[in-house]
């Protein structure tokens, strides 16, 4: 108690001396610094609060995309390590052992300073069809939604609803009659078909703004900045190497007897994997996978080192530096990461429960 009081009185004395007001009032003051990547409207005249929201969205976007990409690459690499093909298994091992033993920050610097900065300037952009690549980013066609695009969105949701109905119907019929129906492929087809149909019916209400070489820079199109690309590649490949190991360990943990039993029942290899091995492997895979997702979300803060405007760099870097409100900004960041961690672990716990063994 006494120690706490002592520390607190020191804190107050120090803050008074530096003339820093406490509290979150600074969030309403104009920020006065630009943020290069913003998904919602943001200018220098906006408040620190707005800057905070922009940074928050940037962190969310990179974490979410990173998680999706890392899972896809990780599962592929994990399966590749178990492949019968000697060459594929060795290549996957090299991939995993290389990436997970090199610090993430180093990998991020590598992608940013060594690869993306080394691309040619805008004048000599590398061109793939409608895509341009240079040291200022990757440019792609930017879809411009015209009037009537709402109809297509509506069509997409109708497609999703129809697909869900189809899956429910197929499941019921299978429990009733035992007749199997390829529901997942069919539902995917339904979504694509209905969306496409609504596109045709509304007369393609999308135009593409193509990137072109202007006099000094690329004009038009949509740009992925090098900071974003570097953080995304580094985060997803680094985490994928850990996920690959988790997937491999999970699949190896399923007793070989299960596979043999399934074969003796006459199930083909694909169904054995999907219905017997995978559901059992998932129970082992999910808990460590959750912590990898959490790690990825937390590691996105390293983007601060290459000026990707995520939470740490905007709030704890620029805002804290300009206002001196270090305690409040650090508190805000900890709160955000805390709730992000909590959300991911709650979701994964729910999924884990759904997948776990129902014991009698």
């Amino acid at each position, binding site marked *: 108690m006494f120690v706490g009081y002592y*520390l607190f009185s*020191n*804190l107050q*004395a*120090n*803050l008074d*001396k530096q003339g820093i007001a406490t509290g979150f009032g600074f969030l309403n003051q104009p920020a006065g610094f630009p943020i290069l990547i913003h998904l919602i409207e943001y200018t220098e005249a906006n408040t620190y609060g707005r800057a905070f929201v922009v940074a928050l969205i940037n962190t969310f976007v990179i974490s979410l995309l990173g998680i999706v990409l890392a899972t896809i690459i990780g599962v592929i690499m994990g399966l590749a390590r178990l*492949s*019968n*093909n*000697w*060459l*594929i298994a060795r*290549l996957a091992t090299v991939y995993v*052992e*290389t990436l997970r*033993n*090199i*610090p*993430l*920050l*180093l*990998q991020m*610097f*590598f992608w940013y*300073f*060594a690869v993306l*900065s*080394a691309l040619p300037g805008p004048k000599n952009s590398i061109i793939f069809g409608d895509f341009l690549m240079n040291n200022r980013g990757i440019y792609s066609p930017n879809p411009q939604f015209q009037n009537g695009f709402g109809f297509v969105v509506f069509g997409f949701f109708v497609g999703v609803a129809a697909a869900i109905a189809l899956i429910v119907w197929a499941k019921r019929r299978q429990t009733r009659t035992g007749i199997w129906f390829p529901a997942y492929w069919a539902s995917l087809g339904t979504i694509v078909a209905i969306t496409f149909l609504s596109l045709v019916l509304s007369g393609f209400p999308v135009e593409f703004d193509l990137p072109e070489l202007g006099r000094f820079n690329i004009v038009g199109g949509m740009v992925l900045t090098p900071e974003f690309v570097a953080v995304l590649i580094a985060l997803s490949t680094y985490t994928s190497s850990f996920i690959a190991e988790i997937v491999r360990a999970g699949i190896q943990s399923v007793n070989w007897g299960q596979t043999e039993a399934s074969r003796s029942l006459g199930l083909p290899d694909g169904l054995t994997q999907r219905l017997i091995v995978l559901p059992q492997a998932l129970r082992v895979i999910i808990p460590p996978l959750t912590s990898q997702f959490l790690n990825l979300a*937390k*590691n996105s*803060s*390293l983007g*601060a*080192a290459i000026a990707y405007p995520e939470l*740490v760099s905007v709030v*704890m870097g620029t805002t*804290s530096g300009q206002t001196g409100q*270090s*305690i409040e900004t*650090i508190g805000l*960041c*900890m709160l955000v*990461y*805390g709730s992000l*961690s*909590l959300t991911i672990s709650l979701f994964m716990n729910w999924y884990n429960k759904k997948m776990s063994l129902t014991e009698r």
Partner: protein
Amino acid sequence: MTKIFKASPSLPPPVNSVGPVAWIRQNLVSTPFNTALTLISLYILYLLVPPVISWAIINATWDGESKADCTAGGACWAFIRVRFDQFMYGRYPLEEYWRINLGCILLIVLIGMYAIKVVNKTILTTFILIAYPVIAYLLFAGGLLGLEQVETELWGGLFLTVLLGIIGIIASFPLGVLLALGRRSNMPIVKSVCIIFIETIRAVPLITILFMASVMIPLFLPDGLNFNKMLRVLIGITLFSAAYMAEVIRGGLQAIPKGQYEAADAMGLTYWQSMLLVILPQALKLVIPGIVNTFIALFKDTTLVYIVGMFDLLGMIQLASHSPKWLGTTIEGYAFSGFLYWIICFSMSRYSMTVERKLETGHKRN
């Protein structure tokens, strides 16, 4: 004239079932899909390996004074050669390098003494953990016995990386054990303090902890009292990995059957005796892989000190490869430092596998 039956020598197995041919058939081209995968991998290797070799070895430049001397079009290893000392020692004064070397040699000799068994193990461990750090600090920082003082700001390069790693590992381990025991304690206050500490630290990225250590600690201290940045960063790193260590060790504690705790109690051992003599030795052995993984993560995380303005190995590489003389040598720098990190982390993971096998006392079926 009896005919003696003589078995003719057995025929060699068909060419297709042994030797390299069979191996290729089984492992590379067993099915059309497999064949396709093999071809794709070979193509990827063809795309990657020859350019890398020609860049790194054939067209590389080994001698030179600046980037301008590297004209062969390949890697500019001259950069690493010229700046090697800085990558190893940071901005430590040139004439004082011997102090770092001496400190390292001393540590290696001390560790080597475990192998030749001339000194009692307990005495040696106590010496390494208590006397050696004092000696090493005096040696590295100087200021006494006629040694010139070297500010910790000047410490850097691989020296700083290894220093942060080793101190972090040594300090976070006992702290992690205490936190893990605290979390399983029956005392509600101790338990909740430990839970809050562990969960808060694990919920936030290391970078926030480092910022906190370098920005917030000074705010909480009275005027005049201020300890240096390196110490603050070390506190941050140690607290961070102690929280992770605690969770790993808790896993081990939970895996010990209740009978062991009860047996220790029945023998009349006190809490600390039962923990130190019965529970922890078993629990720690179970979680060696997890502990080493935490160490590896800590070692990789030391790179983050660059963000709060310290020049570890990665920081020195950044500094050097962006200096005007050596612009455009980033890939060489990252390749070199990546290789060093890789060697250290990979050998740590292999070492943990060896230890695991050595300590295996047969709870598993072979």
